């Protein structure tokens, strides 16, 4: 029996490439915002904020492409899940990129350098986050369910690390109320990183749904 729908297959591959591109760009944004924080580099922070528009546009493009393919090709079963998953993953990636922008904005609000507090736990959380993004990209590329599940473990590490950092900063605040405004920026960054981890875990859930057609809760 001859294989049909080669053009639709090609369209799906193009869409996948766009999702990969968005994932790569998101990863780049995370790395860049981490660099802005580490070096207290306002130029780099501004660049992250500026780049965000490009990622927003790519997310919309992915949604438009997927909707058009649904309308024109009437996909079912795996094809349909693949399209819906692409849209959902794009939404999660876009949110993650937004948080990267928020972190850069927080860096811009910090006024004193060297920082009043130690950011080594934040650096550690960023490393796990980049590791997690790479894992999500590979899981998507290879349809690797085990890697998608592993995202949940990495998210737990991020939760632990950001929680520790948060506790540290709270203590600091109570000891030196004068720097509360400064430290608030870092507690916000903790929260942003923690949320980014959650969105990457969602990506893992979407990937498992795409493969199996069932919903799994990795965020518990």
């Amino acid at each position, binding site marked *: *029996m*001859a*294989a*049909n*729908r080669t053009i*639709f297959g090609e369209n799906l591959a193009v869409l996948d490439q766009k999702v990969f591109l968005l994932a790569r760009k998101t990863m780049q944004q995370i790395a860049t915002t981490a660099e802005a924080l580490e070096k207290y580099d306002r130029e780099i922070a501004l660049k992250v904020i500026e780049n965000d528009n490009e990622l927003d546009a790519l997310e919309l493009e992915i949604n438009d492409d997927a909707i058009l393919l649904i309308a024109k090709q*009437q*996909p*079912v*079963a*795996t*094809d*349909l*899940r693949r399209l819906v998953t692409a849209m959902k993953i794009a939404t999660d990636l876009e949110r993650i990129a937004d948080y990267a922008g928020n972190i850069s904005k927080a860096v811009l609000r910090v006024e004193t350098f060297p920082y009043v507090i130690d950011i080594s736990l934040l650096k550690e959380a960023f490393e796990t986050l980049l590791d997690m993004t790479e894992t999500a990209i590979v899981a998507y590329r290879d349809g690797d369910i085990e890697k998608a*599940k*592993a995202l*949940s*473990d990495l998210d*737990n590490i991020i939760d632990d690390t950001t929680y520790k950092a948060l506790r540290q900063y709270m203590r600091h605040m109570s000891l030196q109320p004068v720097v509360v405004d400064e430290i608030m920026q870092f507690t916000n960054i903790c929260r942003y990183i923690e949320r980014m981890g959650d969105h990457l875990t969602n990506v893992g859930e979407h990937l*498992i749904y795409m493969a*199996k*057609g*069932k*919903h*799994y*809760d*990795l965020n*518990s």
Partner: protein
Amino acid sequence: MDTKLTTKPAKEGVKTMNQPVAARQSVYRVNDLNLWYGDDHALKDVNLDIKQNEVTAIIGPSGCGKSTFIKTLNRMVELVPIVRTNGVIEYHGRNIFDKDYEVEELRTSVGMVFQQPNPFPKSIYDNIAYGPRVHGVKNKKILDEIVERSLRGAAIWDEVKDRLNENAYGLSGGQQQRLCIARCLAIEPDVILMDEPTSALDPISTLKVEELVQELKKDYSIIIVTHNMQQAARVSDKTAFFLNGEVVEFDQTDRIFSNPSDKRTEDYISGRFG
């Protein structure tokens, strides 16, 4: 925390679109049905349980045996002289292949609608009244009632009520097909077999017939052969996928079109072959 996967529990009170009703009665039970056209083995070990008041869709590529199967259900396939069958088809518990089974009785209970609308070259009224007359109904008033009820049942009454004495050939293709469905309803069948009932119709008429199928399943059990997979997805409760004379998969339509278990089903419904 471990990463053991647990499926999210469905929220209470949340229902899927086509909620199966528990323990519907079977209309047909097909057990190990085999059929040959001469040496050609057209149906192989077919097993299906067809439930009352459901729409069962039969899908599959050309030559997979779906029309042969549906014609076996009213033994019409026996009109082909070289046909041989074995296995059992129970219709309400009785094997239709039993020697003493009255085929006329079977065909009275099991109506059929074909691909091409095939009205008789008679008036609209006479098309519908034909069956009841053959069955001995002579009273004009009763016939009038049957005609109106059948035409209403087939959602065509409003379009033809003022021209019941005109020739049925004057109707459009879509109207003719609904007339044929009405003709089928006139003898008050139990099951309606539909062999690609919309493949010769325009899209609007197709949607009308599809809506009608949804209406009719309240009172009848419907088995529909279709090339149009989206149609199967829209109208049916269960879908059977036939390939090379075998039933590859038979399941809830919701499942077949969202997450089929067999790779061949997936390839067919997503248009990868066929």
